[in-house]
């Protein structure tokens, strides 16, 4: 999820498909109003237009069980680490 509008979100998905040569098997959501980004306290303190890269694992009860905050803009938590956390919870 990002603050991109529908068109930019679609472009980002198309770009990723071309790059990886495969479908993306999870929804990529647009929060152009940034209400959900604010609700998850993920608004970038230096640029309110953008979300900070935060990853959450939410359990079946709707409770946040794990969180990772990427400090540097370019950093992302590798998917393998998220899967590892999912297996441990």
């Amino acid at each position, binding site marked *: 999820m*990002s603050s*991109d509008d529908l068109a930019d979100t679609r472009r*980002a998905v198309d770009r990723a498909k071309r790059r990886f040569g495969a479908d993306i098997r999870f929804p990529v959501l647009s929060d152009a109003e940034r209400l959900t980004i604010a609700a998850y*306290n993920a608004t970038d303190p230096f640029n309110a237009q953008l979300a900070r*890269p935060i990853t959450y694992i939410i359990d079946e009860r709707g409770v946040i*069980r794990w969180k990772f905050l990427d400090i540097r803009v370019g950093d992302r938590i590798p998917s393998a680490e998220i899967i590892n956390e999912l297996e441990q919870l």
Partner: protein
Amino acid sequence: MGRLNGQVEKIEATQINVRVLQDGKVIASVAADADGNYQIDGVAPGTYTIEIAAKGYETVSLTAWVIADQSTPLDRVALQALAVPVAHLRGFLADRVTKQPLENVRVQLIDDAGNVREVLTKATGSFEFENLQPDQRFTLAIEHDGYEKQEIAIEPIPATETAKLTRELVPIQQMEQLPIGDGLPVGAKAPDFSLPDGDGQLYSLADYIGQKRVVLVFYRGSW
């Protein structure tokens, strides 16, 4: 603060409950001792209704005017046996985490017509609703600061029987407030959302709750 005290003619093997109400709300609840004496300390000056109740006996209401720093003695009361058969409900409330009994929890019993009776739990965590109409459905509503609300459907209770109920209240987690942009703390409830993907199809977190775990990734977008 003032004090209330009084005496009830004791009834063999029957607990007598004394409740202090102000404007229909119970503010204190005690049981009379073995000799039928009761005392309630720390009552703010004002007018109160005192309800004296025991299983199978007619409830007596008294009015009391409490004066600061004084003891207000109430008339001695003798409860009369009820002519009609009644049912009772007794419950016990504890904290889910600490397992300790919860005192002074407001418990409301609501009948199908919407009539509300309320009591407070005692130091032992117990509460009683005496002299209910038998074979009638009720809803028990429990609301207490710092705990999640509970509503419990009470099945009809046969005449002369006492239904028993034990419940644990779930503390609402006091979450730390993280600085802006640092996200929500682990243990917090994930806020629901309903957002479109690039094709306009809506996805809600609620669709996954109870079914699957969700990995939610915020990214910066293509700015």
